[in-house]
């Protein structure tokens, strides 16, 4: 019996066997799927912001799952601890939409795009290749990752489903 593991905002988790990871309604956030096809260990991280160094509030820097430049490495490490091998990991990413036209807050402009860029940079630093991507545009996405075959499934309100 496969079970579904929900990954919340600024959170990450791993799954094995035939379990499925899901993160709901990615908007400008980015969901990063990592998968080791040999051990069938899957991991999913839901980041909100590009980098931890932009913020210096110590209460917030405790939440390492929130930032692209800290969360992905944590996810990778927990997958390695579970038996995955770094060189076998492949990434599939989704999200990073621009949900609203920019208003008067300049910092907000292009945050989805900046998240995607930060995720790509971090994956390049960790030498994990990106094999599929469903990012940008202006709509929300729910992201599933199956540990059985490493397939990423994206569901949205108006655009149906896609499997990568």
């Amino acid at each position, binding site marked *: 019996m496969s079970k579904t593991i929900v990954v919340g905002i600024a959170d990450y988790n791993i799954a094995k066997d035939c379990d499925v990871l899901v993160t*709901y*309604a*990615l908007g*400008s*956030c980015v969901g990063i799927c990592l998968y080791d096809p040999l051990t069938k260990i899957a991991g999913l991280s839901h980041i909100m912001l590009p980098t931890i160094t932009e913020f210096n509030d110590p209460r917030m820097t405790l939440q390492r799952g929130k930032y692209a430049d800290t969360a992905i490495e944590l996810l990778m490490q927990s997958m390695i601890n579970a038996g995955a091998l770094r060189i076998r990991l492949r990434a599939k990413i989704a999200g990073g*939409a621009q949900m609203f036209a920019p208003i008067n*807050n300049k910092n907000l402009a292009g945050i989805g795009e900046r998240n995607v860029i930060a995720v790509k940079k971090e994956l390049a630093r960790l030498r994990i290749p990106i094999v599929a991507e469903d990012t940008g545009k202006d709509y*929300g996405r729910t992201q599933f990752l199956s540990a059985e075959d490493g397939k990423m499934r994206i569901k*949205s309100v108006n655009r149906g489903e896609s499997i990568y």
Partner: protein
Amino acid sequence: MAINDYGDLNEIQLDALKEIGNIGSGNAATALSAMLEREVNIAVPKINVLDYSSVCDTLGGPEQLLVGILFGISGDITGMIMFLLHKEFAHMVLNSLVGSEFDGYSGLDEMDKSTIQEVGNIMAGSYVNAMAAMTGLTIDLSVPTMNVDMAGALLSVPAIYYANISDKIIVIEDEFGHEQVGASSHVLLIPEVDGLTKLMKSLGLDS
């Protein structure tokens, strides 16, 4: 006392926010009623300080389809206001004003979109005016921008913008009614924290 987080607000300060929400909701119902040319009832609004994940639950789960209308606020207080309309509400508005149905974003034409934005505009104005009248502060609204999508995806925008400040936001839940039709909307007030300090100071509630 400086307010660093919405969680730092005390009971009296929360009551003041609730009062702003009450007056704003009352004004919004009056404005809505005038616009739709029919009686619009309103239940006592529920006002809470919630974290983002509970906001999603309040709205019917992260995948709930909603209309989101976002405004920037500037002047003495900066931040955002976001209106989230349930589909019954959007339907009530479209049906009364332009005689069309609400069936998701792809089914909305330009007229429908600008109608919904205009209603959002007038309602946002009601809350902002309530806040300005009570505090004497100058608060300006930007032009609205809208989308129809999953609650979680719409909420990611304010969540991200304030992720470095707080995980909590002020949520006003309004239940508008017309004849047998109930239509709920949620208003998210998202002032930046120094705006919140200013707001409390102007009400004499800063200590």
